[in-house]
């Protein structure tokens, strides 16, 4: 049986300290991500203006585990829909409408469906916000072009085997421009 793995719920990490380099094309960032993965800098990240196809494989991040949240939340919403309507109509406030049975469950279906969808959608989005660390208004932006047309490779200090000068020359060797060391004291 296939069960969710913890790595599927990979989280976004704050950019406190580390090194980043800028790349100009999606091909370049994918290539850089592959090389960084081979180098075993665990915990590195790429900053992209749009979802680049193939970056997950290059970085070695597993497919998101959020569909599991959707599944569980959907069942939860469905159960609430059934229980709530049954409890109110057949138990708490039984009302005889046109002689129909108190638990006329066919008529419950629209609301069960709506609650299933509502719960599945809202909980999944809440989980996405949690994993992406949003909303947070005070966040460090590495470079203004990264949400427009350029790509960045980010290697944080927490990455295994981090050594500042080594990482800087490594990012440069991949073709990264504007390679910058980010330190808390440099921050605005």
């Amino acid at each position, binding site marked *: 049986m296939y069960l969710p793995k913890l790595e599927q719920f990979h*989280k976004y990490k704050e950019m406190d300290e580390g090194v980043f380099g800028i790349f100009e*094309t*999606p*091909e370049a960032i994918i290539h850089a*991500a592959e090389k960084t993965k081979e180098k075993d800098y665990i915990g590195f*990240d*790429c*900053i*992209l*203006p*749009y*979802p*680049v*196809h193939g*970056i*997950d494989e290059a970085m070695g*991040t597993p*497919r*998101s585990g*959020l*569909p599991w949240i959707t599944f569980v939340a959907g069942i939860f919403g469905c159960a609430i829909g059934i229980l*709530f*309507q049954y409890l*109110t*109509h057949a138990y*708490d*406030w039984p009302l005889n*409408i046109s002689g*129909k049975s108190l638990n*006329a469950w066919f*008529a*419950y279906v*629209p*609301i069960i*469906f*709506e609650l299933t*969808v*509502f719960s*599945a*959608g809202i909980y*999944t*989005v809440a989980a*996405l916000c949690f*994993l*992406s*660390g*949003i*909303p*947070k*208004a*005070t*966040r460090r*932006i590495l470079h*203004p*072009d*990264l*949400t*427009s*047309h350029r790509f960045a490779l*980010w290697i944080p200090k927490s990455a295994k085997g981090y050594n500042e000068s080594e990482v800087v020359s490594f990012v440069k060797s991949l073709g990264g421009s504007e390679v910058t060391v980010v330190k808390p004291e440099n921050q605005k």
Partner: protein
Amino acid sequence: MSLAQAVRDKLDIPDLVTGGKSLKDVTVDIAKPNEDFPTKLWWNTFLLVLTITLIDVAIIGYLFYEGLYLLGINNPVGWGFFVVNFVFWIGIGHAGTLISAVLFLFRQGWRTGINRAAEAMTIFAVLVAASNLILHVGRPWLGYWLFPYPNERGPLWVNFRSPLIWDTFAVSTYLSISMVFWYLGLIPDLATLRDRATETWRKNLYNVLAFGWVGSARSWSHLEIVSMILAALSTPLVLSVHTIVSFDFAVSILPGWHTTIFPPYFVAGAIFSGFAMVVTLMVIAREVFNLKNYITMKHLDNMNKIMMVTGLIVGLAYGTEFFIAWYSGNEYEVFAFWNRAFGPYGWAYFIMISCNVLSPQVFWFRKLRYNIPVMFIASLVVNVGMWFERFVIMMTLNRDFLPSSWAMYTPTLFDYAMLIGTFGIFFTLFLLWCRIMPVIAIAEVKTVMPQKEGAHH
């Protein structure tokens, strides 16, 4: 040249973004209307619709101070224009979800040019529809009674078997899921605007709106999955909402309403009118905001084709209704349909037929599908026709089983004010939105650009 591009050229598939734009050009072009000072045209239009809205709000206030007797509603026709407007606007909303969700699931790249505006249209249309649902109850300040909550009146619960309660749940679920879907897609684009902003106030505004999005690949990976999940959830949701709206009519035992064709017929009508509204808005937006490279003729052509197909489906439904009424042998049912076409409201029926069935037939011709004035007029005509479709359905009420209970419905000035007011509110919200947020999904358009292809080879 990448293989994919070579295939596109060979098959003569038009590019979804024309004009040889680079990634940066896309950002600059789409963000421009948000960053520039609004044009005179925008101000004039905005002030016009804002005035309509304010007048409408005042009229609504007066209406509820005085009471619903100011409207043309009477005993057989108990809902009047409110429900016509409600069904009409909910229908308009559906195209937005279809473009963003169904076309997403079918991997239709062309949706990216129009999905953002269509989703915004959905939200504003559903808000307008919901306001009509609340207003029609007569005492809107008690509208919250529609929600089940533990209350001070003892264990008194709402009746979950009532279509009105189904509507409440369907519309509020639809509104919340659509809003979340729309806003999630907006977050990366708002981050783009934040990073481009030069003035402090603008930077602060978009900083808050963008939720602190940086564009980490890990976040993108989750966001893409969530977009897919929400698309997969919205697709049945959009069908269910209009199905449930049709249940308002179909679960009754009134001739002409109590028919099993209602759910699919309503859904097709919703797509039809919604796409017509998207065409209307897109034709204006691409002119006003100079977005012809992003909303290309190919996009409009595709939407015109969808309008034609759904128009045919709606036409088939009209025919089926008539056939089944005759075939059932039920004299009340036969009368209801005869009355629709040749009764006192027959003029509305023929407006409906000519607008909805005949006018979209112009799109059989490629030349007319690519003709901006033709499609603009056709889209307006279809919207008029679809409003009349709902009017015709409601007018079935004026003559039901017993001639002694027949009565004519004459809308008053207040009814018309409510109708015009819905357009005022819708366009006010839409124009405001166009100023603050990008009308095209910046990040999503970049994923379908020609030069981007081959990124993973």
